[in-house]
């Protein structure tokens, strides 16, 4: 028979932020003599001990190359590497593990699609549709492709709240649209885009859709089959995994029809000077020795997140967002940029006529790490007619007390520079 305490813990357990913080060694760091308040999670997230250990363990106990050794170490490394692919497949709910391609990060994933799918399917007069809230990495690869092919880039507008205007988006889907490439969650505004509807609209016209999932994947559960997106791109380092590792998801039939990305070892079935036969999926797109240690770090990060549970940390993150939004909005002269109804825990703001760079310097002296600048989204800055913003981006290991420290810090900024 269950005891009372067992009954109490059988539902979603309370999220214990103190315990979670203990998993992240860096969170005990001090900056300028103050406890670190890390609010730059949209730039990169911190790594739990389990991830750091996994990378180290690879070099200490498993270091060897994958896919080519007959020796035991190589075999074990290959198994661990491929097990991560399966883990990621399940994490994103892809149909098959061969639909997961390991890359350096979102930027490389998008470039991969632009230079393979794009080169094959985009021609003179064709169009690629993006949105006004894209990161440079989901603008520039398409611009480069358009320039090369004589195609044009179309941009779906957003509202003053920072929400994509769905009707305008739909109007821009035309007979020449060859691909839609949009962000799932904005790195500046925090807006969660209505990607399901957008994908349905595009698919209605047989247009494939790539989602930039760099910001989304650590904050919202991603199910690529439920979304029915054709490509999904992620960066490990924003998912509590090491830098230099990420993944591209692509529907198998699309990936199969795409030419290879880079040439080299591992991506071939056989090579002669007359002809090279390319390897099958996913290896066709993974030339050269991959970031094996990073991959195993990402594996540990996914385990960590699964163990923590989206259903447990997401409410905490959302409560932080609500609390921080309210607290910041009460500061005289502070204006939040991006007030969409559906938001991830990202708050961009401008303060009086102070430049974000000055705001960031003063906050840094208080131990508070925020991002200041254009956040690799210059067209978005122009849309809101600000040269730059200060951005606080939160993660589940942040606390309400840290939000209070930020508010206090902003008052210091006003006192010093106002």
């Amino acid at each position, binding site marked *: 028979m269950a005891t009372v305490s067992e009954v109490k813990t059988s539902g979603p357990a309370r999220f214990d932020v103190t315990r979670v913080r203990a998993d992240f060694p860096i969170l005990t760091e001090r900056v300028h003599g103050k406890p670190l308040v890390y609010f730059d999670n949209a730039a990169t997230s911190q790594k739990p001990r389990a991830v750091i250990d996994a990378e180290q363990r690879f070099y200490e106990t498993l270091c060897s190359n994958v896919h080519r050794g007959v020796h035991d170490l190589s075999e074990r490394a290959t198994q661990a590497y491929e097990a991560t692919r399966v883990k990621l497949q399940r994490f994103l709910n892809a149909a098959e593990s061969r639909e997961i391609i390991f890359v350096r990060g979102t930027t490389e994933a998008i470039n991969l699609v632009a230079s393979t799918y794009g080169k094959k399917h985009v021609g003179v007069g064709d169009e690629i549709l993006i949105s006004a809230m894209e990161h440079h990495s989901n603008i520039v690869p398409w611009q480069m492709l358009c320039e090369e092919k004589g195609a044009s880039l179309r941009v779906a507008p957003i509202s003053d709240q920072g929400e994509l205007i769905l009707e305008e988006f739909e109007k821009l889907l035309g007979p020449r649209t060859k691909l839609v490439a949009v962000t799932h969650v904005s790195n500046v505004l925090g807006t969660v885009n209505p990607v399901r509807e957008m994908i349905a609209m595009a698919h209605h016209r047989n247009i494939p859709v790539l989602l930039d999932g760099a910001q989304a994947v650590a904050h919202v559960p991603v199910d690529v089959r439920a979304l029915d997106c054709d490509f999904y791109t992620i960066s490990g380092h924003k998912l509590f995994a090491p830098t230099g590792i990420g993944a591209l998801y692509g529907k198998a039939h699309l990936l199969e029809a795409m030419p290879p990305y880079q040439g080299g070892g591992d991506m071939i079935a056989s090579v002669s000077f007359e002809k090279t036969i390319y390897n099958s999926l996913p290896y066709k797109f993974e030339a050269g020795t991959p970031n094996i240690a990073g991959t195993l770090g990402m594996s540990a990060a996914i385990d960590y997140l699964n163990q923590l549970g989206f259903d447990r940390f997401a409410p905490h993150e959302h409560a932080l967002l609500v609390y921080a939004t309210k607290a910041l909005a009460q500061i005289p002269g502070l204006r939040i940029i991006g007030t969409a109804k559906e938001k991830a825990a990202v708050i961009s703001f401008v303060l009086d006529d102070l430049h*974000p760079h*000055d705001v960031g*310097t003063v906050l840094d002296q208080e131990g508070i790490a925020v991002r200041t600048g254009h956040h690799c989204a210059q067209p978005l800055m122009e849309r809101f007619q600000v040269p730059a913003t200060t951005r606080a981006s939160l993660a589940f290991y942040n606390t309400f007390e840290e939000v209070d420290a930020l508010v206090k810090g902003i008052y210091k900024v006003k006192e010093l520079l106002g």
Partner: protein
Amino acid sequence: MSDLHALYQEMILDHSKHPHNLRPMADATCSAQGYNPLCGDKVALFLKLQDGRISDVSFQGSGCAISTASASILTDMLKGKTPAEAEAIFEKFHDLVTGKGQPGSAEKLGKLAVFSGVSEFPVRVKCATLAWHTLRSALAGSQEPVTTE
């Protein structure tokens, strides 16, 4: 907070809020655009050269307190100077903000000495020097926008 007060001295805040010579110049003899991709600071610098001397100098743009104050003070300082004198001031100024200046050299820089606190904030050196790099580009007659990257 003492480092911060050294960085944001009263004169710097004054110039950033009420910049001098913030205006376009229709009859400039040379001009250049400067850009700091890190923070999005932009500056356009206009110069009028007459008889080998800078007879007028102005700027336009948007930037942080450090870059705006630096541009403002630059325009105040350079009137009447020759390009070679301006270049010499930049070199001393650069040494000051990067912490390479000789003891006592700050005094010789006049108003620019208020930027000595920048040397404690290496990421802000680019803000302090943007207008000066742009000046150099304007004097060289370069058409390419300069960036601090």
